[in-house]
C-alpha cells in the first residue's frame, strides 16, 4: 500500500512540469502574457491595420511608393517594431500592392559602383509612421493591460495624413495563461 502511495506521489511530482514543445505561431495555444506584448498581439494588430489601410484612397489604384517611417515604442517592453510592420508590409509587397523603398547601403554602393543613375530610384509617395503605447489598470487581483497600436500614412507631396488607424489589444486576468 505504501509503495503504491509513493509511486503515485512520484508520478504527481514528475507530472507537474510541462515539457517544451513546438506550437503553431498562428495557433490557439500560445502563451498570453499580461505584462508584455505577445507575438499574436502584433499579428492581430497588424492584420486589422492592413485590412483598414488597403481600403484607404491611397490604395485605390496602382502600387503606391511607400517609405517606412519611425514607429515609436512607448511601452515598458523592449521589442523590435518590425514585428508589427512586417505583418503589414509583407502581404502588401508580395501581392504587388505597394512599391516599398529599401535604402539598403550595400544596394546603394552596388548601384554607384555599376554606374547606374539614381534617377531610376522611385521617390516616396507615402510614409508609414506610428506609435505603440500601453495602459495598465487593476482591480483587486485582476490585472488589465491594453496595448494601443497607432499608424498613419502621410502623403509626401502635400504633407498631409491620408489614413490613420488605432487598434487596441486588451488582456485581462490575474495571471498569464495559454490559449484564447
Amino acid at each position: 500500500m505504501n509503495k503504491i502511495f509513493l509511486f503515485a506521489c512520484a508520478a504527481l511530482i514528475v507530472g507537474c512540469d510541462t515539457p517544451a514543445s513546438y506550437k503553431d505561431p498562428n495557433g490557439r495555444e500560445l502563451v498570453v502574457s499580461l505584462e508584455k506584448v505577445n507575438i499574436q498581439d502584433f499579428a492581430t494588430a497588424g492584420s486589422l491595420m492592413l485590412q483598414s489601410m488597403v481600403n484607404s484612397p491611397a490604395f485605390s489604384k496602382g502600387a503606391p511608393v511607400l517609405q517606412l517611417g519611425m514607429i515609436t515604442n512607448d511601452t515598458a517592453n523592449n521589442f523590435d517594431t518590425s514585428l508589427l510592420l512586417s505583418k503589414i508590409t509583407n502581404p502588401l509587397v508580395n501581392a504587388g500592392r505597394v512599391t516599398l523603398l529599401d535604402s539598403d547601403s550595400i544596394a546603394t554602393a552596388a548601384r554607384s559602383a555599376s554606374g547606374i543613375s539614381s534617377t531610376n530610384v522611385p521617390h516616396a509617395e507615402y510614409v508609414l509612421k506610428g506609435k505603440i503605447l500601453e495602459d495598465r489598470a487593476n482591480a483587486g487581483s485582476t490585472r488589465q493591460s491594453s496595448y494601443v497600436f497607432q499608424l498613419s500614412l502621410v502623403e509626401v507631396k502635400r504633407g498631409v495624413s491620408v489614413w490613420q488607424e488605432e487598434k487596441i489589444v486588451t488582456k485581462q486576468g490575474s495571471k498569464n495563461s495559454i490559449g484564447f
Partner: protein
Amino acid sequence: MKKLSLLLSLGLLTGCTSVIQTADRIERGLTPPDAVNYVTTRPDGGYTPQITDNRFGNKIELLAARKSKTDGGYTQVKWDLRNGSYLGQTANISFEWLAADGSVSERQDNWITTPLEPGAITTVTATALKPSSAECRLRIISR
C-alpha cells in the same frame, strides 16, 4: 438558520454571472476542443456554411455575406454575425481567399479575437489583396 439562508441567497444572486460562466467553462471542458467552422462565398452571390462545431453554431448566427468590389477592383466581403445567445461569446476569426479555380490565393494565418455581446450584430470586413482572389472563406472558432 434564516440568516444563513438569506446570506446564501444573497451570495447566489451576486455570483449569478460567474455561476453561468463557470457552467459554460465546465461544458467546454467536458466536450472536445472547439472545431473550426467555415463559410465560403459563392460566385452566384450566396454562401455555403460548413459548421463542424454545432455548440458554437447554435449561438452565433451568420446574417449576411455581402460581396462587392473596392474602387481598385479587389473583392471585398462584409460578414454580419449575430450573437443569438444570452451570454457574451468570443469568436476567433480568420480568412482565406480563393481564386476562380478554387485554389487558395491568399490567407490571413492568425486568428482575430472578436468579442460578441449578447444579441449584438458585428460586421467583419475582409478585403482581398490580390486581383485573382474571387471568393472568401471565413474561418471561425470559439475562444
